[in-house]
């Protein structure tokens, strides 16, 4: 029997600008990458969803604050609540936090500068659908490009998240002022993850690093397992 290609949707909001990079990277990693327009109130049949980077709705009010009211975001919420795999990258991470699907919030970088460079990350969890191809403690090099990437949670919430091991990735050196150098978190159930670095920009050594493929290929593989289970 042929191995099915997992179907992974990428939501396109007005102002998304890494949607095509995400579609390209997922297709390069052997997924069927499917654009999902933000006005779609229902998702097509999907094995996973990616919320891409960009500046949805101009980042007005707060990053991600308006996108959380899109019809597609409501559909993504239902998908996540049913156990579906959801990965938010950069602006997608901000949207998931504003939507309450992930803990914390992303604030303006402490330097006030837009940061656009490769960063070193440490993997804290390798038992998630998003990190199965990584090893705990492994260092990844993946680029960031954001003005508002300073993840924040109040001390009590942060302590709870650390105790429940919801921090998935940390910057190996200070980057944007995030508390505890948090670069990526997951929900308690482990089916929703967000990260500020851009794995879709690091899937080919020609672009400086292919470490992003470890994260996206983990997602593709987990989505494939779900597609097989459903077939």
């Amino acid at each position, binding site marked *: 029997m042929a191995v099915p290609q997992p179907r992974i949707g990428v939501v396109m909001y007005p102002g998304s600008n890494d949607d095509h990079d995400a579609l390209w990277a997922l297709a390069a990693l052997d997924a069927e990458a499917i654009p999902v327009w933000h006005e779609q109130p229902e998702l097509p049949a999907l094995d996973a969803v990616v919320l891409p980077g960009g500046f949805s709705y101009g980042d007005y009010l707060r990053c991600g604050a308006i996108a959380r009211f899109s019809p597609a975001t409501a559909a993504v919420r239902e998908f996540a609540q049913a156990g579906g795999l959801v990965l938010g990258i950069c602006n997608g991470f901000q949207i998931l936090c504003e939507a309450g699907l992930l803990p914390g919030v992303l604030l303006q970088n*402490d330097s006030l500068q837009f940061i656009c460079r490769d960063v070193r990350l440490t993997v804290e969890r390798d038992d998630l659908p998003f990190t199965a191809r990584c090893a705990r403690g492994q260092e990844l090099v993946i680029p960031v490009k954001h003005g508002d990437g300073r993840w924040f949670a109040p001390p009590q919430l942060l302590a709870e998240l650390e105790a429940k091991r919801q921090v998935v990735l940390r910057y190996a050196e200070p980057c944007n002022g995030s508390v505890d150098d948090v670069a990526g978190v997951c929900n308690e159930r482990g089916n929703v993850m967000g990260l500020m670095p851009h794995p879709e920009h690091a899937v080919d050594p020609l672009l400086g690093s292919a470490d992003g493929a470890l994260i996206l290929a983990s997602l593709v593989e987990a989505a494939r397992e779900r597609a097989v289970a459903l077939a």
Partner: protein
Amino acid sequence: MKATVLVRPKSGILDPQGQAVESALEHLGFTVSAARVGKVIDLEVDASDAATARAQVEQMCERLLANPLIESYEIDVRA
């Protein structure tokens, strides 16, 4: 009814924008400290009395205008 919402970064939240403003004011020769930058949102609310308008604006703040993790808000309602 007219309403004005003041959204402020909560105390204890690092406000780099406020720090930059403070340092620019110091460059101008002013002696200031603890500058914080927030937002003002002016609204016209379709409500017959101030109490109803305030209740609506509180809902708006809770659901959209402020993020309770990092921001506090104040509401002013007038005819």
